[in-house]
């Protein structure tokens, strides 16, 4: 049984002023297995938040079906097993952290005694014990994000849906949230989270679903994600003759020159030593060596161009469900 099954959903919104509708999701299908962390990757405007809102019943799809633990969206049995953290969360500013978590627990139908115990536990988990009685209006952005995570895990849900959980966090906060999520994974909780930051995906996900313009453009396994996130090594050099660069064509992907400076992108890590030795032996000056991680835009440009090519040719095929589940 899939923990979450989103089957061929379509959604369009009416444009402002005009009566015409713009389709933002074009038959999107996602299946999340029990106990896995699935990353939902896409640029701004790809349809990530719309998909999440459909899953949670905040928006209705035009067509298609969503099942959570085999129940339809909005079913109490399903909703009580979901923990949700919205993007840029806003919580009741007039409440203290403790009051807010108690309120969330009551909404989830938790028993009073269990709730009191869990509130203590999650406040410690997100390291906000010193701010327990402070009103949320006085919280920083990072603290709000942690309070959001606390309310999402409060009722010990089986499925966590997190919309950009790392936004607004400092490096320490990011590590802390990663550790919390990995701890939940160890407890066989299923996590579905959206992000547009590749390193977050690499660090956490078992699989990733990459979407663009309301369509799944690719399913990536952890290996593929790691490969996507691997950097390219760029060597900046000065006083390097054209003949020297020509000798390196087997080892470098591309070269670029500006004045007496040249920039070489090394094909693979293993060729770096050869390239550097060759440059130094031929009188070139090495200015710097940098490992450049590809931005999400770089990944999308390559993925999306692939999709467009597919559409222009045979057309984009719907992902095969069995293959997807194998990951």
């Amino acid at each position, binding site marked *: 049984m899939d923990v979450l099954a989103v089957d061929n959903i379509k959604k369009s919104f009416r444009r402002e002023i005009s009566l015409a509708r713009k389709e933002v999701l074009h038959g999107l299908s996602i299946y999340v297995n029990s106990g896995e962390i699935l990353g939902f990757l896409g640029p701004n405007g790809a349809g990530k938040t719309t998909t999440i809102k459909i899953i949670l019943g905040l928006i209705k799809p035009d067509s298609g079906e969503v099942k959570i633990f085999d129940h339809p969206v909005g079913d109490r049995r399903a909703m*009580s097993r979901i923990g*949700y953290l919205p993007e840029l969360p806003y*919580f009741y500013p007039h409440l203290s952290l403790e009051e807010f978590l108690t309120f*969330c627990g009551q*909404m989830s139908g938790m028993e009073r005694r269990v709730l009191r115990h869990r509130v203590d536990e999650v406040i410690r988990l997100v390291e906000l014990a010193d701010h327990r009685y402070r009103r949320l209006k006085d919280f920083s952005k990072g603290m709000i994000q942690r309070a959001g995570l606390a309310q999402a895990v409060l009722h010990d849900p089986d499925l966590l849906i997190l919309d950009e959980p790392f936004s607004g966090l400092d490096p320490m906060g990011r590590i802390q949230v990663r550790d919390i999520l990995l701890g939940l994974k160890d407890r066989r909780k299923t996590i579905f989270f959206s992000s547009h930051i590749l390193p977050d995906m690499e660090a956490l996900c078992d699989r990733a679903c990459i979407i663009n313009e309301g369509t799944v453009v690719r399913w990536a396994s952890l290996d593929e994600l790691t490969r996507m996130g691997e950097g390219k090594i760029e060597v900046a050099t000065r006083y390097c003759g054209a003949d020297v660069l020509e000798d390196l064509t087997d080892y470098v992907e591309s070269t670029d020159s500006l004045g007496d400076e040249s920039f070489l992108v090394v094909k693979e890590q293993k060729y770096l030593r050869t390239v550097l030795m060759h440059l130094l032996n031929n009188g070139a000056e090495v200015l710097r060596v940098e490992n450049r991680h590809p931005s999400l835009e770089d990944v999308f440009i390559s993925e999306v161009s692939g999709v467009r090519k597919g559409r222009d040719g045979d057309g984009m095929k719907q992902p095969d469900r069995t293959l997807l589940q194998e990951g």
Partner: protein
Amino acid sequence: MRRVSSIALNTFRESVREKLLFVALIFGGILTLSTYLLSPLAVGAKQKIVTDVSLASISILGVLAAIFVGSTLVRKEVDKKAVFMVLTRPVSRLQYLIGKFIGVVMAISLLVLVMTGFMVLMMLIGKAEFKPALFVAVYLSALEITVMCSVVIFFSTFTTPVLTLLFSMCIFVAGSLSGDLLAFAQKFGGAFTRIMARAFHYILPNLGIFNLRHEAVHDLPFFGSDVALATLYALVYCGVVLYFAYLIFRRREFI
């Protein structure tokens, strides 16, 4: 039921912590106290002035506070997405709306209670006699405010706070006059006007039935059956309006 009461308590807490309610409270207090200064101007009618101004303050300030507080509560939660914290849990949209409604009613009831306290204090200072009609008038004002709370919640499910405020004000004025308008139309209007007046009379809240101020001020008799009927009317009207609010809110998409 526990979820509804939690939402109501949270709404009550939010409303009480809103400065607007305190402004209304201070304003009502000043108004009631001012009657003590004004009363020497009306020779022999000191008691009537205190009662009249106090009851009018409770009714008008209570309704205004309900409109101002209620018009922003639902919409603010939707706009700021705080509503997601509730609706993504096993809570129905009907439970959410009823909780919000009860919370606003509780907050405004507190305002009414404190303002009634001011009135009683003024009457004690003036050594006035307490008549049952006085407290029945306060009770009916509270019912009137409750009906207006349901109207405000209804508008706030689909329109902006400014329009909610405007529509609710219009409904309050029209509702206060609906009985008079019907009587006027029956006497002087044509067939169409009479039908329209009757239709509006049934659709708009008939707030006239909650007005017992005249009887309370002039110590006139009143019927218990009228009070019971007004109570029943308020319950039914609130139920119907909240049901329509739910029908709209149920279809709402949180983009």
